[in-house]
C-alpha cells in the first residue's frame, strides 16, 4: 500500500490569494522531500492555473477557487478548479502565446509553463460550468543520481 495523503483548500478569487495558493500547495508537498527546483516548478504551475481562474474563469469577479492536492507514493497531483465561464476551445487556449485577452498584456504562456514544469497537464472545461486543470508530477526523480554524483 502506497502512502497517500490529500488536502483541499477553497478560497476567494482575489488576486492576492494567488500567492497564498502556491505557498499552501508548496508546503503540503514538502512531505515528499522535494528539491528546491521541484517546489519552484509546482509553485509556478499552480500560480499559472490560479491566475487563469481569476482572470479568465471569473473575469475578476469574486467567486470560489478550489485546489485539491493528492499524494500517492512519489506522485503529486494538484487540481485547480473554478466554476467560471469555461473554455470554448481548450486546444487553442493551450497554444503557446495564444491569449484571449491581449488587452491585458498577458504573455499567453500560462499553459506552456504548466506543461513545462509538470509531467502531465489535463484540462476539463465546460462553457458556463467551469474549468478544472489537473496536473501531475513525480517527485524525487533522479535524486539518487544526484546524490551519487556529489560523492
Amino acid at each position, binding site marked *: 500500500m502506497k502512502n497517500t495523503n490529500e488536502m483541499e483548500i477553497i478560497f476567494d478569487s482575489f488576486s492576492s490569494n*494567488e*500567492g497564498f495558493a*502556491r505557498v499552501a500547495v508548496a508546503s503540503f508537498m514538502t512531505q515528499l522531500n522535494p528539491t528546491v527546483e521541484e517546489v519552484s516548478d509546482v509553485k509556478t504551475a499552480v*500560480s*499559472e492555473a490560479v*491566475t487563469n481562474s481569476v482572470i479568465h474563469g471569473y473575469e475578476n469577479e469574486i467567486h470560489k477557487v478550489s485546489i485539491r492536492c493528492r499524494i500517492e507514493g512519489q506522485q503529486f497531483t494538484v487540481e485547480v478548479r473554478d466554476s467560471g465561464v469555461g473554455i470554448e476551445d481548450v486546444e487553442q487556449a493551450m497554444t503557446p502565446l495564444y491569449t484571449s485577452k491581449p488587452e*491585458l498584456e*498577458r*504573455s*499567453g504562456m500560462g499553459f506552456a509553463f504548466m506543461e513545462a514544469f509538470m509531467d502531465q497537464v489535463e484540462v476539463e472545461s465546460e462553457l458556463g460550468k467551469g474549468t478544472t486543470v489537473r496536473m501531475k508530477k513525480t517527485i524525487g526523480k533522479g535524486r539518487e543520481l544526484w546524490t551519487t554524483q556529489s560523492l
Partner: protein
Amino acid sequence: MKYQVQENCLTIYLPREVDHHNAEDMRKNADTLIERNHIKFVIFDFEMTDFMDSSGIGVIMGRYRIVRLLGGEIWAVHANARIKKILTMSGMTKIMQIYEEDEV
C-alpha cells in the same frame, strides 16, 4: 517596488514575487515613468526576486514593445538560476540582454 531613473534609463527593482497580483501596479508605474522621462533603456533588477510566473513575462514583453519603438533595449540583472530558466524558456533571452556580473 522601487524604481530609479537615470537619464534615459529606468531600473525596476522587482519584488520578491512577480505574479499577476503585483504585475498590474508594476506595469502602470513603469509606463508612467517611461513616458514622463523619455526612457529608452529598461533594466529589470531581479536581486530580490525568487519567484516569477508568466505574468512577469507579460510585463517584460510589454515594456519591450514600448522601448523598441524608440530604438531602446531591455536588460535583466541579478537573475538567479530559477529566473534565468524562466526567461530562457519563455524566449525572453532573445529580446533582452542578461547581464552576468563577474564573481568577486
